[in-house]
Protein backbone atom coordinates (compact mmCIF):
# COMPACT_ATOMS: atom_id res chain seq x y z
CA UNK A 1 0.00 0.00 0.00
CA UNK A 2 1.04 3.65 -0.39
CA UNK A 3 1.53 6.47 2.07
CA UNK A 4 2.47 10.09 1.44
CA UNK A 5 5.54 11.34 3.32
CA UNK A 6 6.12 15.05 3.94
CA UNK A 7 9.44 16.72 4.72
CA UNK A 8 9.87 20.09 6.39
CA UNK A 9 12.68 22.51 7.17
CA UNK A 10 16.04 20.78 7.71
CA UNK A 11 14.55 17.40 6.78
CA UNK A 12 13.36 18.74 3.46
CA UNK A 13 16.83 20.18 2.82
CA UNK A 14 18.40 16.80 3.66
CA UNK A 15 16.04 14.77 1.48
CA UNK A 16 15.93 17.29 -1.33
CA UNK A 17 12.16 17.15 -1.76
CA UNK A 18 8.99 18.28 0.00
CA UNK A 19 7.10 15.04 -0.23
CA UNK A 20 7.05 11.63 -1.82
CA UNK A 21 4.80 8.62 -2.10
CA UNK A 22 6.23 5.48 -0.59
CA UNK A 23 5.27 1.86 -0.80
CA UNK A 24 4.93 0.15 2.59
CA UNK A 25 3.82 -3.37 3.50
CA UNK A 26 0.23 -3.66 4.74
CA UNK A 27 0.16 -3.46 8.53
CA UNK A 28 3.35 -1.41 8.64
CA UNK A 29 3.86 0.85 11.62
CA UNK A 30 5.40 4.31 11.80
CA UNK A 31 8.65 2.84 13.09
CA UNK A 32 9.05 0.63 10.03
CA UNK A 33 8.54 3.54 7.68
CA UNK A 34 11.20 5.49 9.55
CA UNK A 35 13.62 2.58 9.31
CA UNK A 36 13.05 2.41 5.57
CA UNK A 37 13.73 6.14 5.23
CA UNK A 38 16.81 5.93 7.44
CA UNK A 39 18.17 3.22 5.15
CA UNK A 40 17.76 5.52 2.14
CA UNK A 41 18.73 8.94 3.48
CA UNK A 42 22.25 9.36 4.91
CA UNK A 43 21.12 12.29 7.11
CA UNK A 44 18.43 10.14 8.73
CA UNK A 45 20.69 7.12 9.17
CA UNK A 46 22.70 9.08 11.74
CA UNK A 47 19.70 9.60 14.05
CA UNK A 48 19.89 7.50 17.21
CA UNK A 49 16.14 7.81 17.86
CA UNK A 50 13.12 8.26 15.62
CA UNK A 51 12.09 11.92 15.53
CA UNK A 52 8.53 12.91 16.48
CA UNK A 53 6.08 11.72 13.87
CA UNK A 54 2.63 12.79 12.74
CA UNK A 55 0.05 10.69 10.92
CA UNK A 56 -2.72 12.63 9.22
CA UNK A 57 -1.67 15.84 11.00
CA UNK A 58 -1.68 14.43 14.54
CA UNK A 59 1.25 13.33 16.65
CA UNK A 60 1.59 9.57 16.42
CA UNK A 61 3.69 7.00 18.22
CA UNK A 62 6.21 4.67 16.61
CA UNK A 63 3.69 1.87 16.99
CA UNK A 64 0.86 3.63 15.14
CA UNK A 65 -0.32 1.43 12.29
CA UNK A 66 -0.31 2.97 8.83
CA UNK A 67 -3.15 2.77 6.35
CA UNK A 68 -3.45 3.30 2.61
CA UNK A 69 -3.23 6.99 1.77
CA UNK A 70 -2.01 8.15 5.19
CA UNK A 71 -0.11 11.44 5.33
CA UNK A 72 3.00 10.88 7.41
CA UNK A 73 5.57 13.42 8.54
CA UNK A 74 8.70 13.09 10.63
CA UNK A 75 9.33 16.39 12.32
CA UNK A 76 12.57 18.25 13.02
CA UNK A 77 12.67 19.82 16.50
CA UNK A 78 9.97 22.47 16.40
CA UNK A 79 11.02 26.08 16.92
CA UNK A 80 7.88 28.18 16.68
CA UNK A 81 7.06 31.20 18.75
Amino acid at each position, binding site marked *: MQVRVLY*FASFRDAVGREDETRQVAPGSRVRQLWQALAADVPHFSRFRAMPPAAVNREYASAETELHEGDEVAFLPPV*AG*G
Partner: protein
Amino acid sequence: MYLTTNPIDVAALLNEARPGDGAVCVFVGVVRNESGGRETVAIDYEAYGAMAESEMARIAGALSRDWPGVRVRIQHRVGRLAVGEASVAVLATAPHRDAAFAACRAAIDRIKKTVPIWKKEISPDGTGEWVDATL
Protein backbone atom coordinates in the same frame (compact mmCIF):
# COMPACT_ATOMS: atom_id res chain seq x y z
CA MET B 1 -7.08 30.61 11.03
CA TYR B 2 -4.07 30.71 13.32
CA LEU B 3 -1.35 30.99 10.67
CA THR B 4 -0.89 34.10 8.61
CA THR B 5 1.57 35.33 6.05
CA ASN B 6 0.58 38.94 6.77
CA PRO B 7 1.85 41.12 9.62
CA ILE B 8 0.08 40.26 12.87
CA ASP B 9 -2.42 42.94 13.87
CA VAL B 10 -2.19 42.89 17.66
CA ALA B 11 -4.52 45.86 17.99
CA ALA B 12 -7.24 43.93 16.18
CA LEU B 13 -6.76 41.02 18.59
CA LEU B 14 -7.19 43.41 21.51
CA ASN B 15 -10.72 44.25 20.39
CA GLU B 16 -11.81 40.74 21.28
CA ALA B 17 -12.50 41.35 24.97
CA ARG B 18 -16.11 40.76 26.05
CA PRO B 19 -18.11 42.76 28.62
CA GLY B 20 -17.36 40.31 31.44
CA ASP B 21 -13.64 40.34 30.76
CA GLY B 22 -11.65 42.44 33.19
CA ALA B 23 -8.20 41.24 32.20
CA VAL B 24 -6.36 40.83 28.95
CA CYS B 25 -2.85 39.41 28.77
CA VAL B 26 -1.01 39.52 25.47
CA PHE B 27 2.29 37.95 24.58
CA VAL B 28 4.08 38.98 21.41
CA GLY B 29 7.19 37.21 20.16
CA VAL B 30 9.44 39.48 18.14
CA VAL B 31 12.34 38.69 15.82
CA ARG B 32 15.59 39.60 17.58
CA ASN B 33 18.75 40.96 16.01
CA GLU B 34 20.90 38.20 17.47
CA SER B 35 20.68 34.59 18.53
CA GLY B 36 23.28 32.88 20.67
CA GLY B 37 25.70 35.68 19.92
CA ARG B 38 25.24 35.46 16.13
CA GLU B 39 23.85 38.48 14.33
CA THR B 40 20.49 37.86 12.66
CA VAL B 41 18.87 40.05 10.03
CA ALA B 42 15.69 38.01 9.44
CA ILE B 43 14.03 34.71 10.23
CA ASP B 44 12.23 32.41 7.81
CA TYR B 45 9.30 30.72 9.54
CA GLU B 46 7.94 27.56 7.96
CA ALA B 47 4.96 25.54 9.15
CA TYR B 48 3.38 22.19 8.51
CA GLY B 49 0.30 24.28 7.85
CA ALA B 50 -2.66 21.98 8.38
CA MET B 51 -1.14 20.33 11.44
CA ALA B 52 -0.02 23.65 12.93
CA GLU B 53 -3.57 24.96 12.60
CA SER B 54 -5.05 21.98 14.42
CA GLU B 55 -2.37 22.02 17.14
CA MET B 56 -3.00 25.70 17.87
CA ALA B 57 -6.75 25.10 17.89
CA ARG B 58 -6.19 22.26 20.33
CA ILE B 59 -4.04 24.46 22.61
CA ALA B 60 -6.55 27.32 22.62
CA GLY B 61 -9.43 24.94 23.25
CA ALA B 62 -7.71 23.10 26.08
CA LEU B 63 -6.86 26.33 27.90
CA SER B 64 -10.42 27.63 27.61
CA ARG B 65 -11.61 24.38 29.19
CA ASP B 66 -8.96 24.44 31.93
CA TRP B 67 -9.74 28.02 33.05
CA PRO B 68 -13.42 28.93 33.18
CA GLY B 69 -14.11 32.25 31.50
CA VAL B 70 -10.81 32.26 29.64
CA ARG B 71 -10.58 32.67 25.89
CA VAL B 72 -7.32 32.32 24.02
CA ARG B 73 -6.54 33.66 20.56
CA ILE B 74 -3.32 32.79 18.75
CA GLN B 75 -1.75 34.13 15.59
CA HIS B 76 1.53 32.81 14.20
CA ARG B 77 3.18 34.30 11.20
CA VAL B 78 5.07 32.37 8.54
CA GLY B 79 7.42 33.51 5.79
CA ARG B 80 10.41 35.84 6.05
CA LEU B 81 10.26 38.26 8.98
CA ALA B 82 12.63 41.15 9.58
CA VAL B 83 14.08 42.09 12.96
CA GLY B 84 11.39 43.72 15.09
CA GLU B 85 8.47 42.01 13.39
CA ALA B 86 6.04 39.93 15.45
CA SER B 87 6.26 36.20 14.82
CA VAL B 88 3.53 35.16 17.25
CA ALA B 89 0.83 36.81 19.32
CA VAL B 90 -1.17 35.15 22.07
CA LEU B 91 -4.11 36.92 23.65
CA ALA B 92 -5.87 35.58 26.73
CA THR B 93 -8.99 37.28 28.08
CA ALA B 94 -10.48 36.43 31.46
CA PRO B 95 -12.62 37.92 34.20
CA HIS B 96 -9.49 38.42 36.36
CA ARG B 97 -5.77 38.70 35.83
CA ASP B 98 -4.56 35.45 37.43
CA ALA B 99 -6.26 33.37 34.77
CA ALA B 100 -5.32 35.76 31.96
CA PHE B 101 -1.61 35.62 32.82
CA ALA B 102 -1.61 31.85 33.43
CA ALA B 103 -3.43 30.99 30.22
CA CYS B 104 -1.30 33.34 28.13
CA ARG B 105 1.90 31.90 29.53
CA ALA B 106 0.74 28.32 29.14
CA ALA B 107 -0.29 28.99 25.55
CA ILE B 108 3.07 30.31 24.40
CA ASP B 109 4.91 27.54 26.27
CA ARG B 110 2.79 24.87 24.55
CA ILE B 111 3.08 26.54 21.17
CA LYS B 112 6.86 26.42 21.39
CA LYS B 113 6.77 22.79 22.42
CA THR B 114 4.30 21.17 20.04
CA VAL B 115 3.25 23.31 17.07
CA PRO B 116 5.10 22.14 13.92
CA ILE B 117 6.78 25.39 12.98
CA TRP B 118 10.45 25.82 12.22
CA LYS B 119 12.70 28.78 11.83
CA LYS B 120 15.81 29.49 9.85
CA GLU B 121 17.94 32.35 11.08
CA ILE B 122 19.33 34.50 8.29
CA SER B 123 22.80 36.01 8.78
CA PRO B 124 23.99 39.32 7.32
CA ASP B 125 25.76 37.37 4.52
CA GLY B 126 22.43 35.89 3.44
CA THR B 127 23.10 32.35 4.60
CA GLY B 128 20.56 30.66 6.82
CA GLU B 129 20.60 28.03 9.52
CA TRP B 130 17.71 25.99 10.87
CA VAL B 131 17.32 26.41 14.61
CA ASP B 132 17.84 23.19 16.56
CA ALA B 133 18.29 21.28 13.34
CA THR B 134 20.99 19.11 14.86
CA LEU B 135 19.65 16.23 16.92
